[in-house]
């Protein structure tokens, strides 16, 4: 039903197609890429040609192959980091919202505190501290990306926990895990789906920014962010080396944003008619 509704919206459908293309490239990278992304078969910064469709980068590596392989790191980090962030945010939001009291207020004060930190700087600090590998980058991004979701989930859990049906099941003597998993979490699913989708746009941009600054994915492993970093010194003569991976990141983020926005319209009936 939800998928059908997405397919009816042109922009969301476009987003879905773009993501499908990128995901296919990421999964089939070793078979799709014409060259090994880490060896240098050509001249440096050669313009696009029949042998190298997108030209070569500053180290003479085939740019198309790097772009296809770069989809892997970018997508894996975006999706996994966001998944962890959603899990942390949900856990903290539900716990604080259901328990309230001292535990709840400590958790929410901590959340407020995290909101006051500039996320990128905190991530820079952690990434510089922890010697980046792909999984460290994932953890760092997850650690700074759960905050807003935790606030949203908290607010929803508080209002759900006060509903009469929850009071009723509690009165019957249902256990806390049963109330949480049967009666509260299912109602949070639409919110989690929407935020989970929009969140991938944010975490992918985050990866790109960290890699662009040189503390994300480390070369020679390509990611779209570090490809921009590697090639920016030459951007006046070979602008495509900066613009193509940059545009790929932008398209990816836009696609997830478009789908998330469509999902919000579809799943949240309270918003209907407001737009």
């Amino acid at each position, binding site marked *: 039903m939800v998928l059908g509704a997405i397919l009816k919206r042109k*922009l969301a459908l476009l987003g879905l197609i773009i993501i499908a293309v990128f995901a296919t490239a990421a999964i089939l990278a070793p078979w799709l890429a014409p060259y090994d992304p880490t060896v240098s078969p050509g001249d440096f910064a050669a313009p696009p040609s029949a042998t190298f469709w997108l030209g070569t980068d500053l180290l003479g590596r085939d740019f198309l192959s790097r772009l296809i392989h770069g989809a892997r790191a970018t997508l894996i980090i975006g999706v996994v980091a966001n998944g962890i962030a959603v899990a942390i945010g949900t856990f903290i939001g539900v716990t604080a919202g259901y328990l309230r009291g001292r535990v709840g207020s400590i958790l929410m*004060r*901590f959340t*407020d*505190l995290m*909101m*006051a*930190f*500039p*996320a*990128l*700087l*905190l991530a*820079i*600090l*952690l990434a*510089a*501290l922890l010697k980046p590998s792909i999984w460290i980058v994932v953890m760092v991004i997850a650690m700074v990306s759960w905050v807003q979701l935790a606030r949203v989930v908290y607010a929803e859990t508080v209002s759900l926990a006060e509903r009469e049906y929850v009071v009723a099941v509690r009165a019957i003597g249902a256990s806390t895990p049963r109330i949480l998993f049967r009666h509260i979490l299912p109602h949070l699913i639409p919110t989690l789906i929407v935020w989970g989708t929009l969140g991938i*746009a944010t975490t992918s*941009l985050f990866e*790109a*920014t960290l890699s*662009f*600054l*040189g*503390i994300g994915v480390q070369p020679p492993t390509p990611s779209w*962010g570090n490809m*921009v970093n590697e090639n*920016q010194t030459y*951007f*006046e003569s070979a*602008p495509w080396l*900066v*613009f193509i991976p*940059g*545009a790929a*990141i*932008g398209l990816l*983020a*836009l696609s997830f*944003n*478009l789908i998330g*926005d469509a999902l919000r319209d579809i799943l949240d009936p309270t918003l209907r008619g*407001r*737009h």
Partner: protein
Amino acid sequence: MAGYLIRRIIQALMTLIGISLITFLILFMLPADPARQVAGRTASAEQVEQVRQQMGLDLPLWQQYGRYLGKLATGDLGRSYEQRTQVSELIAARLPATLWLMLAAIACELIIGLSVGAIAAFRRNTQADRLVMFGAFAFVSTPQFLLGYTLLYVFAFWLGWFPIGGYGSFSHVVLPALTLGLLGGGWYARMMRSSVIEVLRQDFVRTARAKGLSRARIIFVHIVPNAILPIIAMIGIDIGIFMSGIVVVESVFGWPGIGQLTWQAIQKVDFPIIMGVTLVSACAIVLGNLLADLAAPLIDPRIRLK
């Protein structure tokens, strides 16, 4: 009103203390031994031990935290590993450039975001509205360095209208401010649009129309000021997002501000600088939120009652 003021200020102070606690704990995770850093590579084990005692690094944790807080309170952010100068001096030297860029960028994003958002709201569900909202979405999804390099390439390198990076005259600030302004403007446009639509539903708008007021008067006196109110609070929160953008944009445009200082510190793994910038911007965010909260009741008297 006084109660509200005091409550908000106490809250802000608590947040600052929390921030100092977290950065203090991060200091402990640092791979480098601070006593060794100060004593130098050639120092003997005893000398390092002596420095450790002088610096109070052998004290219990809570006492060290007390000393750390005391230092922060006097503006001491430690010394840069690389440049051997006080971090606070380095930041202070770079602050004017960053403030200048920030001010220009905030002006840009408000002018772009608020006007575009309002226009979309007045023409909602038309082709123009959909186009504008798609554009806003596209800018929100654009990596900062991509927009920065695009503007740089088109307007500086290709057309030659603006200098290719650097700092100085007014024309230097246009492209970096526009980069931050367009990206943030997309965000404000979406908020402004829903805010105006919300106000359009209010009874007082219908009354104003029924009274036969001119369209311009309804829009500029009754709708826009009310729609901007909820957005003022966002500017405070926005400072945090801005600090992230500034690191990238300053490195793209070679703007000699705090962002570039951070970028250089990242390349040299100069922790005290990264730490200092994090602390200073966290304080700026807390202060920005506090100011926004304090300004809100002055602009909207209804908030005073809460």
